[in-house]
């Protein structure tokens, strides 16, 4: 299986390991990730305003490039996934956006949301299959109690993101089971970490992260996994007594025995 891959700004920089591990694990699983040749930043947040077009264009370029390559678009960072998926949905459903975007970009073939945006976790679940993944695990993370942290961007609004049940998701739990560890159920896995207020008002983000971290710890979690560099930052920097936080791809790589391949 070959995907067009959209890494996003942070994965080229502060969150390089999220990307690295993902690529190595994918190679082991027989999935090819072809990075889009000229991707641009998605903007970090989805432009909610109905009249915003320009801020959606960079996403459309990425979506269109995947369409032209005849591939689904694979994402990794929660924020990029959220933005790309929602912009794509706008292109599928909002005629005004469709017209304006196509007038502006004037592509040879108008873009109307044909690309399928798929998150790395969804790829593991729906394409590789967790049962199959389990078979390929060489270092099962036995006994490790892991709290999955979804945050807000992966799940909501569920009508558009459609990844999993927005209030009682299972995809990360199933992933944790597949790599041999034990998922820890706790109620704040889908609560916001504070997101972009981290820079403006770190003390406010602290409150959010403390609640999440403490809840996970109270249920006996030894570590937290996330798919989002900003959640990672917040949970590490802004929680008191923080549990170790990993990108899910790092534990995936560890379980598949490819974590230490590269020095």
């Amino acid at each position, binding site marked *: 299986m070959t995907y067009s891959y959209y890494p*996003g*700004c*942070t994965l080229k*920089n*502060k*969150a390089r390991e999220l990307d690295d591990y993902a690529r190595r694990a994918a190679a082991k699983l027989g999935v090819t990730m072809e990075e889009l040749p000229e991707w641009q*930043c998605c*903007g*970090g*947040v989805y*432009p*909610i*305003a*109905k*009249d915003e077009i320009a*801020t959606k264009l960079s996403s459309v370029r990425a979506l269109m490039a995947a369409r032209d390559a005849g591939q689904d678009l694979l994402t990794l*960072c929660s*924020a990029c996934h959220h933005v790309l998926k929602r912009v794509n949905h706008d292109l599928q459903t909002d005629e005004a956006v469709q017209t304006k975007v196509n007038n502006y970009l004037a592509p040879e073939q108008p873009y109307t949301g044909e690309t399928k945006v798929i998150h790395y976790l969804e790829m593991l679940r729906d394409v590789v299959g967790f049962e199959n993944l389990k078979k390929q695990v060489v270092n099962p993370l036995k006994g490790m109690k892991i709290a999955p942290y979804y945050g*807000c961007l992966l*799940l*909501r*609004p*569920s009508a558009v993101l459609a990844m999993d049940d*927005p*209030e009682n998701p299972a995809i990360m739990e199933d992933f944790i089971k597949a790599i041999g560890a034990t998922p820890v159920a706790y109620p704040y896995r889908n*609560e*916001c970490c*504070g*997101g*972009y*207020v*981290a*820079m*403006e008002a770190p003390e*406010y983000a602290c*409150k*959010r992260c403390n609640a999440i971290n403490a809840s996970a710890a109270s249920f006996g979690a030894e570590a937290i996994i996330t798919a989002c*560099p*900003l959640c*990672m*930052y917040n949970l*590490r*920097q802004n929680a008191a007594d923080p549990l170790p936080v990993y990108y899910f791809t790092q534990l995936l790589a560890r379980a598949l025995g490819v974590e230490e391949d590269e020095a």
Partner: protein
Amino acid sequence: MSDTKRLKEQILAISGVNPRKCMKCGKCSGACPAYDEMEYHPHQFVAMVEDGRIDQLLASDSLWMCLSCFACVERCPRQVEPAHLIEGVRLALIRQQNQNHLHAEDIPPKLNDALPQQAIVSAYRKYSK
């Protein structure tokens, strides 16, 4: 048309929200993780925009406290989408002259080594035009 009326129409158009769908159950504010940080809560945004009491909202810090986590959007039984409305109010302010909440020159002192690019990009997107 009065300024308030024009502002209200602008906010409704930007956000695509119809505040009249609200049945005042307060579920948005019951779900909101930013509740304690806010002077005006999500359900009040809906009521106050509909009421035309927008100046109070524009003057309040509550505007900048919404995390756009969409918990209210997800859980609203009437599909009002309060987070979209709050964004509409925010933009109604930011799009006016000299109303950026975050300025480029403010950023460097707030940075640290671990802060991901994403945080800067999204904060800038949320707080400035």
